[in-house]
Each structure stands twice: as structure tokens, then as C-alpha cells.
């Protein structure tokens, strides 16, 4: 290949590389650079070394926000994975009904976080919300989901699960459709019960999809922000403040860009570490896991 042809090839990926550089690579390094400075939103800053990081290490609000983030992620990812898989199994069939329900369950994913939180505010409000009415109909005291520090994270998780169900369900559906029908026919002739077929045929075949869903959702939920900001503004008394909400408040509430950048770098490293740990823990795919051959 001549060098001029290589140069022309670059034109094709050029627009993408430009965007990628401007909105991903540059901010990444700029953020790292900023985190080493004390800098306000306007005006020049000055270099402070690792002072911002040292401050973060001793900041109880930041630590609380990290704990909240981990807790809410733990509350979201496992149930979300199980529910999405269950829905995919139930809806993995032809027919008008299943097609419609697939659309219904995916529809929440197209809503913006503003709409989602608006809807769930109606559901969760203790005095007039749908859950409150339900509780009252059952003769119980309505639960103050959004003002009880012990209930606010589960409420946030519930909202997020409802909102995020579509993509994992779709991924599982795609995974299910990769499994050749012959595999199930062979299992039927081998006298496998429905449960055995699920555990020995379906689940192993969905291994990669499941890992993908868990990794994507973990990385996404560690950055949970909009729901917490819009539903409770991090309250009551910081009980639902997530890490991204913390850095948003630092940057655009207290105008401490350097400090917020340091928090962002810490969060970035945590997400990277968690994702890599998941990747290593599940292995790069042992022999025999390369999928089905025809």
C-alpha cells in the first residue's frame, strides 16, 4: 500500500477522530491537568500538585457520595440483569403480543431523565403518588420514599431499573436468538427438563451477553446523576448524593473546577478498575466458549 493511499484512508476516519479527540481525549487530559490546579470557573488558576486529591481523601461528603454510588449500583445491576433476562426469555417468541410487549418494555429507555424522574415523582410521592395510594388501599402508612434516608436509594434504584430495562433486554433477546434451534432439539431428545435446558444450554450460551450487560450497567450506574439530581437533589441530607452529583456541585455550585476534576479522575479510575476486575474475573472466554458453529 502506498503512503498516499493510507493518507486518503485517514479521511474516512478523520471526522470521527476529530470528534473523539475534541470531546473525549482532550477533556480526559484537560481534566487530569485541571485536577492538579486550584482553579475557579473564571480567571486563572495555579498549580497545587496533589493537594486536591489529599483534600478529597479527607472529605466525608465525597466519601459518602462514593458509598451512595456503590450502594445504588449494587441495588440496580443485579436485579436489572435478572429482570431483563426474565423479560427476554418471556418475550423471545414470535407473535403480535410478544412484539408489542417488547416495544412497551423498551419504550421507557427512549425517555429523557427529566421525564423519567417526573413520572417517578408521581409514583413515589407519599401523599398523592401511585405507590402511596396503593399502600393506603392496603391499609398501610404511605412510605416517604424520597424523604427517608433509608428509602431514598432503593427509590432511586427502582426508578433507574425501570428506565434502563430496554437495552439489556434487547441484548439478551439478541443473545437468545443466536442459539441454534437444533441445540434445543438435541436437548429435547436428550430428555432435558425445561430447567435443565435453561441452566445447561441457555445460560452458558448467554454467558458473554450477561458479562456485557453487567459491565455496561455497572459502568453506567457508577455515573448515576440525573435521577439523583432531579428527584431529590442528593437529599435528604446527602443520603442520595452520588459521586457525579458531588462533582457537579463542586464544579457548578461552588465553582471549584480543580477539586471537581480531581473527584472526576478518582471516579474514572474506580470505574476503570471495576470494569477491568469484572473482565478478568470472568476470563477472556475459555476454549469452547467461542459460540456455536454451524
Amino acid at each position, binding site marked *: 500500500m502506498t503512503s498516499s493511499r493510507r493518507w486518503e484512508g485517514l479521511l474516512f476516519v478523520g471526522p470521527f477522530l476529530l470528534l473523539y479527540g475534541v470531546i473525549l481525549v482532550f477533556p480526559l487530559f484537560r481534566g487530569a491537568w485541571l485536577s492538579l490546579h486550584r482553579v475557579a470557573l473564571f480567571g486563572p488558576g495555579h498549580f497545587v500538585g496533589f493537594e486536591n486529591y489529599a483534600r478529597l481523601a479527607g472529605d466525608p461528603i465525597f466519601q459518602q457520595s462514593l458509598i451512595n454510588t456503590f450502594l445504588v449500583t449494587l441495588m440496580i445491576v443485579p436485579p436489572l440483569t435478572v429482570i431483563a433476562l426474565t423479560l427476554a426469555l418471556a418475550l423471545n417468541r414470535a407473535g403480535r403480543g410478544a412484539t408489542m410487549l417488547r416495544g412497551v418494555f423498551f419504550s421507557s429507555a427512549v425517555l429523557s431523565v427529566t421525564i423519567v424522574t417526573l413520572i417517578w415523582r408521581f409514583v413515589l410521592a407519599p401523599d398523592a403518588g401511585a405507590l402511596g395510594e396503593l399502600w393506603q388501599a392496603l391499609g398501610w402508612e404511605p412510605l416517604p420514599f424520597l424523604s427517608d434516608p433509608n428509602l431514598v436509594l432503593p427509590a432511586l434504584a427502582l426508578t433507574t431499573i425501570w428506565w434502563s430495562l430496554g437495552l439489556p433486554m434487547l441484548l439478551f433477546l439478541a443473545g437468545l436468538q443466536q442459539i441454534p434451534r437444533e441445540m434445543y*432439539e*438435541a436437548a*429435547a*431428545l*436428550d430428555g432435558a427438563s425445561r430447567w435443565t435446558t435453561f441452566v445447561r444450554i441457555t445460560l452458558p450460551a448467554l454467558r458473554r451477553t450477561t458479562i456485557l450487560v453487567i459491565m455496561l450497567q455497572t459502568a453506567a450506574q457508577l455515573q448515576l446523576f440525573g435521577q439523583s439530581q432531579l428527584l431529590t437533589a442528593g437529599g435528604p441530607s446527602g443520603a442520595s448524593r452520588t459521586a457525579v452529583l458531588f462533582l457537579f456541585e463542586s464544579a457548578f455550585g461552588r465553582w471549584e473546577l480543580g477539586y471537581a476534576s480531581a473527584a472526576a479522575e478518582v471516579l474514572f479510575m474506580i470505574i476503570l478498575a471495576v470494569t477491568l476486575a469484572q473482565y478478568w474475573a470472568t476470563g477472556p472466554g475459555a*476454549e*469452547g466458549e467461542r459460540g*456455536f458453529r*454451524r
Partner: protein
Amino acid sequence: MTLDLKSVRKAFGATPVLDGVTLTIQSREFIAFLGPSGSGKSTLLRIIAGLETADAGEVVLDGRRIDTLAPGDRGVAMVFQHYALYPHMTVRENLAFGLKNARVPRKEIDTLVDDAARVLEIDPLLERKPDQLSGGQRQRVAIGRAIVKRPQLFLLDEPLSNLDAALRLRTRVELARLRQRVDASMIMVTHDQAEAMTLADRIVVFNDRRIQQVATPMEIYNRPANTFVARFVGSPAMTIAPATFANGGEYASVRLGDGTVVQTRVPREGLPEGALQLGLRPEHIRLEPTGVGGTKAVVDLVERLGERSIVYARLKDGLLVTGETDGLTNIKVGDEVGLSIDGDRAHLFGPDGTGYHREGA
């Protein structure tokens, strides 16, 4: 062990695929379902296996009606066309899966799996996964998975179609050996007549939703029930030409379009009136050694196979016939040759396609 199919009917939506199929398969018999794609042969196999349900009719195995049972409870095992090995299980787990589901004691499973593996020479592969095996090895694992279940009936769905030519011949021999070893009946679906002819005790020829003929390979070849069977079995295909009665006599004598008269050994009595067709296998149309005499024809194409040559030639009236000559022939396209037709071995077909053959074999 006998398998009885009673008036099995099946349609996919508005498309009928099987039209009242009735068939009995004897104990330890090797049956080939032979037919072109879409003839319904695979569907019938899947109905026996329980992977499809018949719209009407019964499947009875050894006096027990099985078409109402789950596939795993029928006492049948199937070797799938694409093997359908479980990709995330080792070969050993693949073989043991059905036995585990049947709650066979662990020790017995190990014995059965080890025995099957030894017989099929896959014992060094037991701890491997399917994607570490070659095509032929996978095929043998698939057969092993069927053997360990000790079924009363083996179902083989195009077992050789995925293999290359050399491996296909070897596996064909292996299937023949397998057949000697197991105390079960076997049904093999195939569209390859050589497989059917070499392996089967009886061949069931399917076409157009129906069984066309059930007979031994030699009978299928020598006494085809109709023009479809005559054309489908035998390679190259039988020449089938329009003909008219030439004269009376105990045996029918017919005249081809170019005037050639062929004296057959088909009894005149019982033959229908009306348009006839004469059927001649390539080996019964020979080139005159001297190149003169007999029926005049012009060579259209010569296929040299080594031990013999296939000659496609046109008669004076334009009819294309397929004949044979020895492998050393030096005839070429465009040559005028003389053909000698062995009327003793000729077949006749009535207006509805029904075959009439010489007496005896």
C-alpha cells in the same frame, strides 16, 4: 422392535408436506428416506423424533404409541445434520447429558460413555470441547451421543452431507459398521442415492409429499415404481423416451421416434393402452464397437470416468440418450456412432408414469 407409521399427515400452514404416509419398519432394519429437498422426508423424520407434531396419524414403536410422548421419552436417538453438539460442554459431558437427564447412575454413565468412546475411537478427545474437534470427530461424537442412550431407533438426518468427499466415504463405512454393532433400527434421511443404495436394507423414495416406492436398493434400481424413481435413482439418470407399440407378441416391442424398434422382455399383457415411455439405463445403451450398425446417433458430449465413458448422443429425431462405452474410447463430440440397445433390460412406463418391468429380477 418395529416402527409403524399410520396415515401420517402434516401441513405447514396451507402447504401440505406429507399426505397420509403409511410405512412399517422391521426390527434391526436400516431404512433410507431418499428424495429431493422439500419432498417431506426430513419432516417425517422429525415427526418420528417428536420435533414436529403430525396433524393426523399415528407413530407406533414396538406396539407403543409414541407420537403423543415427549421426544426424550420415545426411545429414539437422533444424529443431527449439523451435529448440534453442546458447545460449552466437553465431549464426555455431551455424551453423558442424555443419560444424566434419564437419572442413570453415575458409574453406569461412565461405563457407557467410555465404551462408546472406545468403539468410536474418540477416547482421547473426551475432555475436549466441540470447537477443538475436526468435522469428522464431531460427527463421531454426535453418533456417540446417540449410541450411549441405547435407543430402539436411530434417526440420522443427512449425516454425511457436511463432510468432504474423502471423509464421507469413510463415515459411510463407519455407519455400516455401526449398524452391525447396535441392536436397533436406523432411519437415515438423505438426498444422496449412493448413500441410500450402499447403506440401506430398504429405501423409501419420497417425492411430492408421498412415498413413491419402498423396496430394496436393487429392486428400486431394477424395478422402479414410476418415472420419478427411475430418474431419481441411478447416475447418470435413465433415459426415458416416448415410444409406441410396434407389434404384438408375448413381450412388448416398441418403436422410438427415430424408428428404432426395441424388443423388450416386458410382458405385453397388463400394459395399458396409450402413450408409452421406454426407460433405458446408460449401461444398456452401448456404443457399437465398430462404430457401425445399430441405431445411428451423433455424439453430444463425452464424460470420461476412467474405467468407462458416459456418452450423451442425439438420435435422428433429436432425442438425447445417455449410453456407455469403455474408458479407452477415442470418440469425440460430433462423431456419428452406432448404438446397440439392450432391449432385454428395458423398462416401460404407462401414461400415468407407472413402471412395467421384465419378469424375474
